C-alpha cells in the first residue's frame, strides 16, 4: 500500500495547523486547510482508509463552523482540530503496521458536534405545517440617515423593479430559463442589500422573502408556475409602492411610509415553498388561461372533449368557440417565442446628456459655418467639397447621438398591457391587448412623461370604451374586447395609437353635455370630428360612473394638456358602436424642435410647428372687431382672436394691419388664436437652448435657439402667449 502521499499530506496539514491561532483566525489559512483536507479525503478513499475519510469530514465541518463564526468556543474547536490531526496520524500508522483499521477509534470528532451558537441548518426557513405570517405591520421609523444615499437607492431601486417586471414577462414565456430567473433574483438581492444598510426593514424583509423564493426557483426546488409569477409580480408592485412612498417622504409630501400588511404575501410565498401550488410546465392551454383568453373551466372541458375526439387542445377550443384562431396562434407564438439576444452596457445618463448637448453645439456651429461658406461663393472647390463631407458627418453624428437616448417603447407597452389586465379584471371585462410596433424607439427622457397621459387613455378605454362581455355579445361583438397599442415613426415624430373596439363616443351625449355647460349653443351645427374634440374641454366627460380618475370630468383635458406640454398632439377618432382610437404624436427628441421662423419687426421668433394650424394673409373683410371680445379674424368660418406680437414684445412692426401682414393660427391650451407677424421666413430644425432659471419664468417664451446666422431667436410658447393676451385684453375692454 503506497501511503507515502497521504503521510505527506498529513504532515503538511500538521504544519499548517501550527500557524493557525484561535485569536487571529486566519481565513486564507483555513482555506488552504480545507483544500488539503479534500486532498486527504481523496487519497484516503483510494486507499480504502474509511476512518480517515470520516475524521476528515468531521474536521471539515468544525473548520467551516470556525470560518462562519458559529462556534462559541473557538479555542476548543481549534484544539479539537489539533487532536483530530494526531488521531489521523495514529490511524495511518496503524494501517502501516497492521495493514488494517485500528479498533476502538471513535469516528468523527465529538467536539465538532457541539456548536453553541445557532448553526446554519441546511434548508432552513418555513418548515411549520402552516406558514406563520410575521407580526402585524409596524410603522416604519422615519430616520433618514443619509438622504443622498436614499435618493440613489430610490432611483436605482425603481429601475431595478422595472427590470424585474420586464423579465417576469419573459420568464412567463420561458419558465425554465435560468438566466431569466437570475435576472429577477439579482435585483431583489441588491435591493435587499442596500435596504439593510439604510435600515429600511419592511423593504428588506419583503425583498428577502422574494429573493429566497427565487433562489429556490433557481436551484429547481420550486417550479416557476403561475402562482409564482403572480406573487413575484405582486411583490415587485408592493416594493415599488413602498419605495415610492419613501420618495414622497423625501419630497416632503408625506411624513412616513404607510405600514404595509405583508402577511398575505408571506402566506402565499409560504404556500408555494411548501409545494402546495404545483402545476405542470407550460402548455398551450395554460398559456391561454393565463392570458385570460379562456377560463380554466373552458380548458378542462376542452381537454376532455379533445381526449375523446383525439384533437389538439387548440383545435378543440377553436371549434368550440372558446378561442379565436388568432388567439390560439398568438399563444402558440408565445410558446415558441425565443427572446432575442441584446448586448448592452450601462452608461451614466449624465454622460449621455453631456454628449448630446455637445453634439447640439456642434450642429449650431456647423450651421454658422454653413452660412459663412455660402457667403464665400464658389471660391474654393476643395474647401467646399471637404465642408460638404464634414456636414454629412455631423448630420450622421447628430442622428447617432440622439439615437443613443432612444429605447424601444416595448417596456411602456408591456406596462400598459399589465394595466389592462388588472383594470379589466376589476371591471369585470375581458380585454385582449395587441401590440404593433413595440420596437419603435422613443427618447428615454420622455418615456416617464408620456406614461401618465397614456394611462388615462387606457383607463378610459377599459372603463368606458369596452363593454362587459354580456353587453358586447348583445351588440353582436365578440365577448373579448380588444385594445390595440400601436407605435410608429412619422415625420420626425413618434405616433402612439391606443384603439379599442368598444362602444365608441356617443355623439348626442357629448353634444348635450356641451350645451349644458354652455360651451356650444343649442343650434350650432358641428361635424362629428368637432364633437369628438369637445371631450378635450374641461368638465366634459359624459361617463356615468365616477371611477377613480376617469369619469370625474378631469380626464381628457388634463391628458391633452400633458401631451401638449411635451410638444405633442392628440387626436381622437371614433365611431358609435364600433370603437375609439386616440392618436398621440410626440417629437422624437426633446432637444431639437421643428420650428417655423417668423419675423416681427427686426426680431425673429420660432413657433413650434406642432402648434401651428395654418398661416394666411387675411382679407380686409375677414377682420372683425367684436364688442366685448376684441379683434378677431374670420378663419374658414370661425372667429379667432388676434394676438399682436409686436405689442407684447414692444417692437416696431413692419405691418400693423392684419390684411397687410401674415396671420399664423396656433393652438394652445385647447383654443386657437391668430398671431400677427410680418413675415414667415421658413422652417428649420433648431436646437433648444434653455434661457436659464430666471428667464424660464417669462411667460410666452419657452426657450431660445441660435439661428443659422448666429443670431438668437426666441421660441414662443402659444399657451403662455394666450394667457398674456387674455390678461391684457382684460385691461383693454
Amino acid at each position, binding site marked *: 500500500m503506497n501511503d507515502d502521499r497521504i503521510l505527506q499530506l498529513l504532515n503538511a496539514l500538521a504544519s499548517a495547523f501550527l500557524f493557525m491561532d484561535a485569536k487571529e483566525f486566519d481565513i486564507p489559512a483555513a482555506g488552504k486547510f*480545507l483544500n488539503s483536507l479534500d486532498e486527504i479525503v481523496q487519497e484516503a478513499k483510494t486507499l480504502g482508509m474509511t476512518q480517515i475519510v470520516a475524521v476528515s469530514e468531521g474536521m471539515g465541518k468544525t473548520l467551516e463552523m470556525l*470560518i462562519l463564526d458559529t462556534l462559541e468556543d473557538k479555542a476548543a474547536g481549534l484544539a479539537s482540530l489539533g487532536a483530530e490531526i494526531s488521531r489521523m496520524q495514529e490511524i495511518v500508522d496503524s494501517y502501516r503496521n497492521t495493514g488494517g483499521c485500528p479498533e476502538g477509534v471513535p469516528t468523527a470528532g465529538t467536539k465538532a458536534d457541539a456548536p453553541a451558537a445557532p448553526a*446554519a441548518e441546511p434548508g432552513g426557513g418555513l418548515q411549520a405545517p402552516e406558514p406563520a405570517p410575521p407580526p402585524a405591520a409596524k410603522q416604519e421609523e422615519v430616520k433618514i440617515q443619509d438622504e443622498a444615499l436614499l435618493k440613489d437607492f430610490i432611483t436605482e431601486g425603481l429601475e431595478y423593479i422595472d427590470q424585474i417586471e420586464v423579465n417576469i414577462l419573459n420568464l412567463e414565456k420561458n419558465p425554465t430559463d435560468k438566466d431569466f430567473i437570475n435576472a429577477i*433574483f439579482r435585483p431583489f438581492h441588491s435591493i435587499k442589500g442596500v435596504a439593510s444598510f439604510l435600515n429600511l426593514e419592511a423593504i428588506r424583509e419583503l425583498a428577502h422573502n422574494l429573493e429566497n423564493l427565487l433562489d429556490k426557483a433557481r436551484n429547481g426546488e420550486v417550479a416557476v408556475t403561475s402562482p409564482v409569477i403572480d406573487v413575484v409580480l405582486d411583490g415587485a408592485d408592493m416594493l415599488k409602492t413602498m419605495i415610492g412612498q419613501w420618495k414622497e417622504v423625501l419630497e416632503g409630501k408625506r411624513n412616513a411610509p404607510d405600514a404595509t400588511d405583508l402577511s398575505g404575501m408571506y402566506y402565499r410565498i409560504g404556500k408555494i415553498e411548501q409545494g402546495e401550488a404545483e402545476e405542470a410546465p407550460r402548455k398551450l392551454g395554460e398559456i391561454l388561461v393565463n392570458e385570460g383568453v379562456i377560463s380554466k373551466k373552458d380548458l378542462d372541458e376542452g381537454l376532455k372533449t379533445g381526449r375523446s375526439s383525439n384533437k389538439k387542445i387548440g383545435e378543440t377550443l377553436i371549434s368550440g368557440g372558446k378561442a379565436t384562431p388568432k388567439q390560439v396562434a398568438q399563444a402558440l407564438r408565445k410558446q415558441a417565442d425565443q427572446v432575442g439576444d441584446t448586448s448592452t452596457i450601462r452608461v451614466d445618463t449624465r454622460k449621455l446628456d453631456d454628449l448630446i448637448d455637445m453634439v447640439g453645439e456642434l450642429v449650431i456651429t456647423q450651421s454658422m459655418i454653413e452660412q459663412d461658406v455660402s457667403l464665400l461663393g464658389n471660391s474654393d472647390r476643395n474647401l467646399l467639397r471637404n465642408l460638404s463631407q464634414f456636414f454629412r458627418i455631423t448630420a450622421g453624428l447628430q442622428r447617432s447621438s440622439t439615437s443613443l437616448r432612444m429605447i424601444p417603447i416595448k417596456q411602456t407597452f408591456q406596462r400598459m398591457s399589465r394595466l389592462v389586465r388588472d383594470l379589466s379584471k376589476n371591471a369585470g371585462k375581458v380585454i385582449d391587448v395587441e401590440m404593433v410596433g413595440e420596437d419603435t424607439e422613443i427618447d428615454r427622457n420622455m418615456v416617464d412623461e408620456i406614461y401618465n397621459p397614456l394611462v388615462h387613455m387606457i383607463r378610459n378605454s377599459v372603463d368606458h370604451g369596452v363593454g362587459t362581455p354580456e353587453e358586447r355579445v348583445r351588440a353582436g361583438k365578440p365577448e373579448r374586447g380588444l385594445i390595440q397599442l400601436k407605435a410608429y415613426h412619422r415625420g420626425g415624430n413618434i405616433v402612439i395609437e391606443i384603439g379599442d373596439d368598444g362602444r365608441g363616443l356617443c355623439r348626442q351625449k357629448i353634444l348635450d353635455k356641451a350645451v349644458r355647460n354652455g360651451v356650444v349653443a343649442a343650434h350650432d351645427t358641428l361635424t362629428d370630428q368637432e364633437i369628438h374634440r369637445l371631450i378635450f374641454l374641461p368638465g366634459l366627460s359624459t361617463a356615468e360612473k365616477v371611477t377613480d380618475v376617469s369619469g370625474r370630468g378631469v380626464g381628457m383635458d388634463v391628458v391633452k394638456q400633458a401631451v401638449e406640454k411635451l410638444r405633442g398632439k392628440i387626436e381622437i377618432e371614433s365611431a358609435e358602436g364600433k370603437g375609439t382610437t386616440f392618436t398621440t404624436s410626440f417629437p422624437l427628441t426633446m432637444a431639437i424642435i421643428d420650428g417655423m421662423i417668423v419675423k416681427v419687426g427686426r426680431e425673429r421668433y420660432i413657433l413650434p410647428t406642432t402648434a401651428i394650424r395654418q398661416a394666411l394673409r387675411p382679407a380686409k373683410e375677414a377682420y372683425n372687431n367684436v364688442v366685448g371680445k376684441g379683434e378677431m379674424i374670420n378663419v374658414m368660418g370661425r372667429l379667432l382672436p388676434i394676438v399682436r406680437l409686436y405689442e407684447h414684445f414692444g417692437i416696431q412692426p413692419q405691418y400693423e394691419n392684419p390684411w397687410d401682414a401674415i396671420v399664423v393660427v396656433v393652438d394652445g391650451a385647447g383654443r386657437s388664436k391668430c398671431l400677427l407677424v410680418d413675415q414667415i421666413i421658413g422652417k428649420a430644425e433648431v436646437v433648444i437652448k434653455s434661457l436659464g432659471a430666471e428667464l424660464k419664468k417669462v411667460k410666452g417664451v419657452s426657450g431660445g435657439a441660435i439661428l443659422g446666422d448666429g443670431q438668437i431667436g426666441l421660441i414662443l410658447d402659444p399657451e403662455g402667449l394666450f394667457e398674456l393676451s387674455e390678461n391684457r385684453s382684460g385691461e383693454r375692454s
Partner: protein
Amino acid sequence: MQKDMKILIVDDFATMRKVIRNLLKQVGYENILEAEDGVSALRVLKAQKVDLIISDWNMPNMTGFELLKAVRADADLGKTPFLMVTAEALQDNVVAAVKAGVSNYIVKPFTAEVLNEKISKIMEKLLTP
C-alpha cells in the same frame, strides 16, 4: 494601516458601491475605484495595481466567486487581497470562497467598524510571511 491604499469596489448596484465607499471614507480610506461587474473589474485590475478588492457575490456577467477564481489564477494578480461581501453568511458560498482563496468575507449589513476590522486583519497578514 496605509490609508492611501487603493481599493477596488465591485458591485452592480451603484447605490451599494456608494454605501461601501462612504463607509470606507468614514474610516479613512479615500483612494477608491469602482467596477460594476467582474468583467470590468478585471479590466481595471489589468490596468493598475490595486491593494484590496471588495466584491459582492451576486453580479451579472461574472459573479464575485468567478472573479475571485480569475484573480487567484492570474499570475500577476494572484495574491491581491480579496474581501467578499455576502448576505447572511450563506454557508456554501462562504466555504467555497474560502477554499478558492478569499482573504476574508463580510456579511451585509455591516458597520464601518466591522469593515475596518476585516480590512486590518487582511492587511496585517500580508506583513507576515
